[in-house]
């Protein structure tokens, strides 16, 4: 009963916040209300069962009540916040995210929400339910254009979720290849050999999430081209030595590859796309900062050049499977910075060129560009 009361109380607050929501949040708002109805339905059903007066099902009802209480806690913690914190300035992020979802068949009907935390996404699991996806971005970068390309990485996690079985199969094959590459040429049977074997096991396991992250980087580059590479590099390169090197102990089951390695692979992708200058400048910035910190590139066996071909080949297969939109060359080379943006990709690449060419005049240009972008009807 108390849970029902809490759900009703929250429902009132959600309704009160509905006036003045950014229009782009409409589908998310509806989805959040539908989730609330679902939770209420589960509580009411438990109460109906309780009315049967059968002691034998009490342990099940207790577990069921605990389950719905935990679901409500997650709903409260994560899903409602995007509605209650919503403000007019969210339109820039939400419009970009809505466009991003609209151009991919898999995500077209998935509502998007926005919240304030470190860059990440909470994707739904389409095999379980079609709950909305929430994208997170720190407050300071939500109001500008430069770091919006980071969303292009995050949508990769959703595309992965929609193709989970096929993608997991591809990761399994890659992990098998890495295991083969790590195998010792001579088998011994002593403690040292057993320790090595354990480390090889950790390396192979760690590549489960590393592969997904590298795939998402590739999705980011496929969607955003140079704007994604610039945003990614600039966002992370001054965050400290652990972006460049991580101790072997902390590499074990680390969710993300070392960022320097991710930069190497992004530069490789830029070179393959014929953008040699972008690749050199990307790597050059990281090499200079690494040198200034006296940090050398060392992945302690978690990455070796011999992994490169199988990793790249796996990621290509993953891109083929999920079909993210490809960056179009004209989106990165448009001459007129004040032209009406044909896509957010065009706008975000223009923003990076403007910023790099004229950082002093950037803010006033950006304000005009955002205003014009919000007013523009985007083609899908």
């Amino acid at each position: 009963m108390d849970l029902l009361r809490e759900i009703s109380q929250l429902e009132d607050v959600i309704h009160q916040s509905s006036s003045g929501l950014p229009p782009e949040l409409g589908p998310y708002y509806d989805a959040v209300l539908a989730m609330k109805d679902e939770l209420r339905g589960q509580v009411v059903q438990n109460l109906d069962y309780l009315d049967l007066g059968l002691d034998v099902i009490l342990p099940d009802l207790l577990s069921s009540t605990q389950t719905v209480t935990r679901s409500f806690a997650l709903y409260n913690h994560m899903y409602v916040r995007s509605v209650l914190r919503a403000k007019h300035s969210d339109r820039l992020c939400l419009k970009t995210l809505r466009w991003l979802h609209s151009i991919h068949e898999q995500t077209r009907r998935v509502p998007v929400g926005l919240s304030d935390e470190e860059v990440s996404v909470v994707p739904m699991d389409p095999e379980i339910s079609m709950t909305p996806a929430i994208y997170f971005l720190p407050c300071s970068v939500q109001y500008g254009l430069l770091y919006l390309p980071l969303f292009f990485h995050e949508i990769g996690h959703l595309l992965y979720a929609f193709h989970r079985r096929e993608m997991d199969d591809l990761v399994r094959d890659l992990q098998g290849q890495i295991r083969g590459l790590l195998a010792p040429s001579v088998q011994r049977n002593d403690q040292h050999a057993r320790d090595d074997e354990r480390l090889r096991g950790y390396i192979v396991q760690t590549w489960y999430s590393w592969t997904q992250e590298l795939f998402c980087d590739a999705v980011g580059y496929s969607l955003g081209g140079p704007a994604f590479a610039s945003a990614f590099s600039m966002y992370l390169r001054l965050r400290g030595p652990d972006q460049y090197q991580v101790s072997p102990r902390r590499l074990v089951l680390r969710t993300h590859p070392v960022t320097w390695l991710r930069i190497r692979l992004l530069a490789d992708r830029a070179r393959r796309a014929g953008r040699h200058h972008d690749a050199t400048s990307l790597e050059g910035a990281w090499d200079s900062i690494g040198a200034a910190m006296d940090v050398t590139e060392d992945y302690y066996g978690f990455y070796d050049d011999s992994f490169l071909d199988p990793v790249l080949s796996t990621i290509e297969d993953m891109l083929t499977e999920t079909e993210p939109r490809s960056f179009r060359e004209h989106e990165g080379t448009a001459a007129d910075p004040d032209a009406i943006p044909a896509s957010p990709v065009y706008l975000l690449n223009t923003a990076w060129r403007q910023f790099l060419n004229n950082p002093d005049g950037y803010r006033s240009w950006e304000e005009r560009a955002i205003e014009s972008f919000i007013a523009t009807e985007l083609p899908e």
Partner: protein
Amino acid sequence: MRAQWLTVQSFQHGQELLAAINTLSIHLKLRDQSAAGPDSAKAVEDARRKLDRFLEEMEQMIGGPNGKEVNPLLLGTNPRTRELAESFEEARKDRTRFRSELFQGDIANVRQLLDSNVKGDEELLLRCLDELRLLLQEHVQADATQIMGQI
């Protein structure tokens, strides 16, 4: 950049399985008492299929009671699912808390129990569901703590 996706998806998956266990367990107990509840036949069937898929996955990762332990190099499997399989394997060694066919017998037999109409099988299945619920609650609780913290 954070990797919340792994934990949230694991949490949601665990919650779905717990809901399926509760639905099926209540259904079997009500049927035994010749009582009817608000759950639809479709909800019960969905619960059976979800549990069957999960047990199939565990069977592939762990095998029978005398089979292999969880393969430390389990490939193409997300870390939380692998940890759940490891907890399952640990539970098999805890004969005080986990005594059902699911943990001391063969997972394949339990999958058959899900669809069995043989008298007596329901009792066996209910014991398995009880213990699986125990295991999953611990796993889901760990996910919940990681996502939402503790007070």
